[in-house]
């Protein structure tokens, strides 16, 4: 068996690298990107995740109980588009209201929000030339049993009283599980991405300063970081969240307050190594200001930990959000969130409502696994060592 082992060893040293080396010189980043593309699992995971995330921004047009187009008495209305515009941050106020009552469209006796699904049936039976174009999946994540035709605990692929099929059933309040799952994806991923950026915003400058200046400042700060890392942060966030009931922004800040330590340690080590190199001494000797050396000269050379840590930071962010939501201390209800769906699912597990648990669980598993695949490939592409490793 010994020869096989030795043979493998020679294979693992990169001989193909020189063979594939193109004649035109390519930058390090280009070479890494090519390497990343050659790692099929990570590359396709990235494509899949990016397209799913891009698609999720169109959810208000794809998965919503508002009609895309209503033609009523010769006039055209676009409730879903309007509701999407209104929900935009900052400029949303310019578009007025997205509310159309049922009576507005001739739905008798409904002065509340128009039920477009019933409206479609009504127009079709009337045959007066009015019509409704519903969204591809005409249910919203927060419409519950108070909307006519929604019943609680409808199993997947069964008809509700109005004859509509629910892909993944409904939950304890009659809300559509598929719609909640889809919106939950958008919220979880956005949350984790912003959280990771926030972490970087805090952690990178601190780590850079520690590594660059070193000395007593570094020793003192290291002690503080050790203290910060010793605090059981998720439990502490749970406690604080149970007291203050956070919203999206507050929850982000609260988590960022504790999670920046991870990247700081990595950046510090990288800067510590880099500052001993000649180009830093050269820059110093011609009088380049220190902040410029740190962020213009060293930082581009310290990109490896910054980029390779990012996917794992996103995984941790989603995990933290789901845990908090699961306990009921996360985003305020009725925000569609996977953690909240799981906690409802766990409550009703014994009575056989399996779909409440299965759907968010699969969504979480698949999303996280895709990100880990991406992260692992990114690491492999950036790391001269040939074997894979997790953080």
């Amino acid at each position, binding site marked *: 068996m010994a020869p096989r082992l030795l043979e*493998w060893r020679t294979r693992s040293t990169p001989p193909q690298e020189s063979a594939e080396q193109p004649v035109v010189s390519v930058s390090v980043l280009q070479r890494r990107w090519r390497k990343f593309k050659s790692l099929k699992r990570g590359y396709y995971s990235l494509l899949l995740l990016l397209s799913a995330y891009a698609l999720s921004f169109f959810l208000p047009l794809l998965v919503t109980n508002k009609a895309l187009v209503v033609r009523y008495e010769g006039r055209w209305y676009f409730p879903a588009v309007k509701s999407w515009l209104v929900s935009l941050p900052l400029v949303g106020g310019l578009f007025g209201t997205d509310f159309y009552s049922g009576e507005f469209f001739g739905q008798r006796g409904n002065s509340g929000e128009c039920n477009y699904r019933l409206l479609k049936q009504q127009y079709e039976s009337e045959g007066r030339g009015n019509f409704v174009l519903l969204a591809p999946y005409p249910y919203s994540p927060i419409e519950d049993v108070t909307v006519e035709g929604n019943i609680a605990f409808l199993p997947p692929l069964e008809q509700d009283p109005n004859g509509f099929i629910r892909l993944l059933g409904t939950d304890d309040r009659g809300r559509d599980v598929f719609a909640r799952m889809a919106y939950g994806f958008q919220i979880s991923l956005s949350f984790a991405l912003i959280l990771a950026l926030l972490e970087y915003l805090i952690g990178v400058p601190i780590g850079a300063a520690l590594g660059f200046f070193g000395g007593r400042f570094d020793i003192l700060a290291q002690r503080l970081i050790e*203290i910060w890392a010793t605090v*059981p942060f998720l439990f502490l966030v749970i406690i604080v969240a149970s007291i203050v009931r956070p919203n999206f922004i507050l929850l982000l800040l609260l988590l960022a307050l504790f999670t920046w330590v991870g990247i700081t340690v990595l950046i510090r080590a990288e800067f510590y190594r880099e500052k001993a190199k000649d180009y830093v001494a050269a820059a110093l000797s011609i009088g380049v200001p220190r902040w410029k050396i740190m962020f213009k000269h060293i930082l581009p050379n310290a990109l490896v930990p910054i980029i390779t840590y990012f996917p794992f930071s996103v995984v941790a962010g989603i995990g933290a959000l789901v845990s908090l939501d699961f306990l009921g201390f996360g985003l305020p209800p009725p925000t569609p969130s996977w953690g909240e769906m*799981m906690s409802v699912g766990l409550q009703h*597990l014994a009575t056989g409502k399996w779909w409440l*648990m299965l759907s968010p*669980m699969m969504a979480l598993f698949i999303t996280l696994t895709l990100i880990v695949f991406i992260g692992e490939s990114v690491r492999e592409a950036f790391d001269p060592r040939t074997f894979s490793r997790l953080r």
Partner: protein
Amino acid sequence: MWEYFLRRLLLTIPTFLGATLVVFVIIQLAPGGPLEQQIMALRMAMGGEAVGGGVAGQTGAMIPESALEELRRYYGFDKPILIRYLTWLGVWPREIESYVATPGRIRNIGEGRQVLVEKTSEGYRLTDPQTGQPLTGWHIEPQRNERGEERVRIYRTGFSGILTGNFGTSYTYNEPVMHLIMQRLPVSLQFGLIGFILSYSICIYLGIQKALAHGTPFDLISSTLVFIGYSIPGWALGAFLLMLFGTQTFIELFPLGGFQSENYAELSLLEKILDRAWHFVLPTIAYTVGSFASLTVLMKNSLLENLSQDYIRTAFAKGLSEKRVIWLHALRNSIIPIAANIGYIIGLFLAGSYLIELVFNIDGVGKLSIEAVFARDYPIVFGFTVLAVLVRLFGAILSDLTLALVDPRIRFK
């Protein structure tokens, strides 16, 4: 080396103080925290309308008055936060007993003790009515009751806090927090240790096999599984397994949570063991999966790295068998980074499992403390946080110690 560890031990003291200070300040200063809930509850108790309502008002009202009194005394809410922290630690004196007595009448102060407060020309005097001896160490504070009659409050101060082992009294269980934690610790420890041992033994073996089969389909498939395991939080996997194997919907193989069956006491020894094992399977998987991926990959990479070293080539060249080279030469060096992780992983198992205990309904320390968060039982919450900090601190030291034991090259200075 022992000097190094002594220094490490001493360094844990400032870290412990710093970490507990951070926890204490954040919880105390959070708007609507213990302090504000206390004020709100007092306002409501004094007959005012439910001020503001809000989350704090809804549950805060359930805390009994005596518990609030105890809480206020325990945290000393009228003092500045640093003093409150020191008091909580037990290095600043706090009131440990307080009674209201009528001058000239004997007052029972529990445990069969009696005191007598007498008014003298220069103030009040406290004596033991049985012996007539004056009592020392008590503070006397004159006050009037609601009918304007003369009363005195007598109290004694002392050092009592987490450093003296006093974590306060839980007001949902009405028992000392220390006692509650100690009661549930064995349950958590059983799961933690079994999970720990299992994950170490499986990960080392799997890592070796993966390293030897690097690049083969077995390696690729197991890597995929390992990555999936890495991405999933243990408690979520636990809930998923419960759905698959704990209910009648799919396959009912295991119980829907719990630590042992209801008729556990009536079972024979063998049945007891089987019953425990039956309850242990799913939670143990959930515990194990958390550290599984990183350990396996660490083991694999470490062995791979060692296998490409010159001393392995030498060993093969002088004709040693592959078994001997791998298991005796390469493995001994590859184990080092794994051993260095031991403290960190132990910490995860001991203090990071509250969500798993909640999902599986295991009556351990984790479930106790997360339920205390729901019930706003702050003494338990603080107690658990201190425990978690301690476990992390000693985990780090344990890691260094193990590293020094398995790697003779390491000399700490």
